[in-house]
C-alpha cells in the first residue's frame, strides 16, 4: 500500500515510514520472492508483454458464461505495476537517493507514446509529474476518497470480477478501500453531463473476447498515482480486458483528455488469476478512525479539488 507518499518533510516522512512498516509487514517477504520471468507465456517486461499478449489473445478461446460472454470471474492480481508513478522511476532520478524519503525505483506502465511519458501540454506537466500536485496537495487516496480508473484497478492488492446472470453488467470488487466498479453492458448511455463522479460512469461492451469499458463523467478530483499525475473532469478512460490463457489477462487502458494532454496515451500490464484456496476480500475500512489528515494539514498540504488545473485551464470549468 502506498497512500502516504508526500513531499520531503522530516516529520511527515517519519509518520509515513512508521505507518508503512506497521501496515505492510509482508513488504520484506514480497521483495524476497523471486520475480516471475513470464506471465501467461509472455515476457515479464511491459512492452514485450504488451506485444506478445495481443498476439496470444487472437488464438485463445476463453470459457463462456451462461449468457454467452467470456467468463472472467474470479480473483485477480495486477503485475508489473508501479503505483508511485505511472511513468516509472529510474535509478538516475535524484529523488531515489533522498535521505528522508527515497522514491521507489520501478518500471513505467506506459506503452504509448514511444517515449513512455504522459503527453502533457507544457502547463499541465508542471502540475503533474513531481509538480504542484505533489508539492502542495494531499494525495486524494490518503484521505480515503474514492479511486478513479485506472488507479482503482492498479492499486488494489487484488480484486474480484463477478458477472451476474443475464450478462447485463460486470462488476469489479476491489479490496482497496472497499471500492467497486459496476460496468453496465446493457447498451445504456452515460449519465447526463452534469453528473460528475469520483469514479466516473462506466458503460461497457464485448468486442469479440475483450471487455471494453468506457468511463466518463469524472469530477477531476482524483490522481493517477502517488506523484500527482492527473486528468481532469474532461478525462475519458477506455479499459480493455482480454484473457490470453485461463489464468492471465492482458489489460490495456487508453486515457484521453484534450484539455491537458496533446494526444491520447496508453498503459498496459498483465493481470493474473489468484487461485489460493479460501481467498476472500477483507473489508478495508479507511475513513473510520482516520487520524492522519490533521498531520498533513499541519504541514501545509491541502485537500485536492482539482484547483491547480482549474485555475490554469481557463474560466468556466
Amino acid at each position, binding site marked *: 500500500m502506498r*497512500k*502516504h507518499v508526500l513531499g520531503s518533510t522530516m516529520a511527515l516522512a517519519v509518520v509515513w515510514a512508521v*505507518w508503512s512498516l506497521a*501496515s505492510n509487514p509482508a513488504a520484506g517477504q514480497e521483495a524476497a520472492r523471486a520475480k516471475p520471468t513470464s506471465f501467461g507465456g509472455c515476457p515479464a517486461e511491459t512492452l514485450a508483454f504488451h506485444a506478445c499478449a495481443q498476439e496470444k489473445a487472437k488464438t485463445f478461446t476463453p470459457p463462456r458464461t*451462461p449468457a454467452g460472454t467470456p467468463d472472467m*470471474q474470479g480473483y485477480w492480481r495486477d503485475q508489473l505495476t508501479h503505483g508511485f508513478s505511472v511513468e516509472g522511476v529510474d535509478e538516475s532520478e535524484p529523488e531515489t537517493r533522498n535521505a528522508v524519503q527515497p522514491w521507489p525505483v520501478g518500471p513505467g506502465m506506459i506503452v504509448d507514446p514511444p517515449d513512455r511519458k504522459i503527453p502533457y501540454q507544457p502547463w499541465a506537466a508542471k502540475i503533474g509529474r513531481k509538480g504542484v500536485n505533489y508539492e502542495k496537495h494531499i494525495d486524494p487516496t*490518503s*484521505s*480515503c*476518497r*474514492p479511486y478513479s480508473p485506472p488507479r482503482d484497478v492498479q492499486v488494489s492488492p487484488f480484486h*474480484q470480477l*463477478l*458477472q*451476474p*446472470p*443475464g450478462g*447485463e*453488467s460486470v*462488476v469489479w*470488487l476491489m479490496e482497496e*478501500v*472497499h*471500492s*467497486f466498479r*459496476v460496468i*453496465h453492458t446493457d447498451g*445504456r448511455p452515460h*449519465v447526463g453531463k452534469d*453528473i460528475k*463522479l*469520483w*469514479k466516473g*460512469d462506466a458503460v461497457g461492451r464485448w468486442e469479440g473476447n475483450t471487455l471494453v469499458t468506457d468511463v466518463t463523467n469524472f469530477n477531476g478530483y482524483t490522481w493517477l498515482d502517488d506523484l500527482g499525475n492527473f486528468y481532469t473532469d474532461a478525462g475519458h478512460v477506455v479499459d480493455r480486458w482480454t484473457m490470453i490463457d485461463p489464468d492471465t489477462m492482458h489489460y490495456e487502458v487508453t486515457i484521453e483528455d484534450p484539455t491537458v494532454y496533446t494526444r491520447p496515451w496508453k498503459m498496459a500490464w498483465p493481470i493474473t488469476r489468484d487461485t489460493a484456496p*479460501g481467498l*476472500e*476480500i*477483507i*473489508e*478495508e*475500512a*479507511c*475513513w*473510520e*478512525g*482516520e*487520524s*492522519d*489528515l490533521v498531520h498533513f*494539514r499541519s504541514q501545509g498540504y*491541502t*485537500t485536492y*479539488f482539482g*484547483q491547480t488545473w482549474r485555475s490554469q485551464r481557463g474560466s468556466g470549468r
Partner: protein
Amino acid sequence: MTHRFIGWPIAAAAVVAALSCQAPPGPAQTDTQSSLPRTPEGGPDLTGIWQAVNTAEWDLQDHVAQKGVPAGPGVVEGNDIPYQPWALAKKQENFKNRLTADPVEAKCFLPGVPRVTYMPYPFQIVQSPKHIAMLYEYSEANRTIYTDGSPHLPGAIDSFWMGDSRGRWEGDTLVVDTIHLSDQTWLDRAGNFHSEALHVVERYSLTGPDHINYEVTLEDPKVFTRPWKMSMPLYRRKEPSVRILEYPCFRFLQEELQPRK
C-alpha cells in the same frame, strides 16, 4: 490510518464466534410463482437495484414527524425493542445526543448491517453461484455474501464494520447470517444500538419480480433480553437510467474542514 477496525480484545471476538451461527427456522417464504426471475441454476435471481421506501433509517419504531424527520409506523415486530434496563437508558442517552453521536450522520462511518439496507439510498445485488455482492450507494459500502458453504471466519479476529456474512438458500429464500460486527454502529438515527455480540439473520424472499420481503432477526445477549424481528418490503428501482451513483459522505466532512475554493 486505521484500515481495519480493531476495536476490542480477542476475548470478545471469541464470544462472538462461540454464538450459534444458525438461523432460527422462520416461516417458509417459498413463493414459487413462475414470474420470479431465476438464475441459470434455477434459484431466484436477486440481481438488480433495490431500495427500501420507509422511515426506518430515522427511527425503527413508531414515531411522529420532527423537522427533517418524516413520521412513520415502525418496522419492528410488536414495536418494542427488548432492551435490557441499562441498554434502554443508553438508547435514550443516544437519542438525546443523536445529532453529534450518530456514527453515520455525524461521522460518516460505515453503517453496518442491517442499517445499510434501509438507508435512503439504492443498493445493487449482484448474484453469482458462490458469491452474492451487495453494493451500496452510501460511501461505497459493500459486502459479499458467501453462499459456497464456507463458515464464518474463525475465532479471534478483528470485527468488520459490515460484518462477516455467510448465506444459504432455504427454498427460494436467501438466508444471510452475519457476525463479527462492530459495536460502534447504530441501527438508526434515533440511537437504537447493539454490541459486538450482535448476530443478524436476514431473509430475502422475492414475492414477485419487483419486490423482496426483507425480514431480519437480531440477537445480542449483551443488549437485548431476547431476539427480535423487523421486516419491510424492498422495491426494485425501475427507472431505465437508475444506477448506483456516489454518496462519499466523508468528503463532505472534509470540505467542512477545508472549504473548496
